[in-house]
């Protein structure tokens, strides 16, 4: 069994209204050095197989087809074997 963690990030050129709004909060708190706040998604799940190649393939396809929208987002993932 593998544990997968996927991080989905909006591409730098795509607006992130949420990140912008949160950064306004940062300014209100006095964090004047905080710049370019961007908000993404963190997703974790398990892949029930002992075949690492198969696990990687499923994580990649799941991320490409559903977890991210390739037009506006990039993703990165990590796989960790668990018992």
């Amino acid at each position, binding site marked *: 069994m593998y544990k997968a963690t996927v991080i989905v990030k909006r591409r730098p*050129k*795509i*607006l*992130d*209204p*949420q990140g912008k*709004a949160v950064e306004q909060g940062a300014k209100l708190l006095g964090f004047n050095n905080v710049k370019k706040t961007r908000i993404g*998604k963190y997703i974790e799940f398990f892949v029930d197989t002992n075949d690492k190649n198969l696990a990687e393939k499923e994580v990649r396809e799941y991320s490409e087809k*559903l*977890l991210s*929208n390739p*037009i*506006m987002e990039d993703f990165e993932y990590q796989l960790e074997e668990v018992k």
Partner: protein
Amino acid sequence: MMDEIKSHNSAKPKFGVVVFPGSNCDHDAYFAVKKIIGYDAEFLWHKEKDLKNSDVIILPGGFSYGDYLRTGAIARFSPIMEKVYNFAEKGGVVIGICNGFQILLEIGLLPGVMIQNESLKFVCKDVFLKVENKSTRFTNLIEKEILKTPVAHGDGNYFTDEETLRDLEKYNQIVFRYSSPEGIVNNDYNPNGSLKNIAGIINRKGNVLGMMPHPERACDPTLGKTDGVGIFKSIAESLLN
């Protein structure tokens, strides 16, 4: 291509209204098309794989699958969407309204993406739309230049890359833009931050339209707005001819 779609010779084209879990404008669309304008209409449950001989497919507004992950991201994998996709690819007429537009973007029948409104607020109000292209099968019977229709969305901020935008403009694919009541298009009349005030676009072939405003909510005269009727009439007439 059109020959592959079953053509109805009856005077009543049939609108199939897809119902996803979380759709909430499905009944409005059905009511507008069937009870107000007088065409045939039928609901299509998203788990079905049968378009029931519909001549037009409406993907209605709402919050399919709770808008989780991204708007429309999960609905586009509903069983019926494979049929809708093939129907559209063969030239079948599809209109996506609000969440339906978001689903069309996710499945790739229309280009671009929808992100959160710039204000981060859910916008629910009447807006004015400048009809930019009246030579489509969705708009050719619209008499007015400017339509008054409601919008109700949190993610209506249309975005695409420069190349796609250039193509949309070049091929007259931008059908509606948010405007003033007089038709002035600028930031003051942009309810959500949408690129170039885009409110509705059509595909290159001209058989798939997506729009954020709700024409189905502007059909019943007792509610004081009827500017949406022209869109459904245009669609129906284009099928009869």
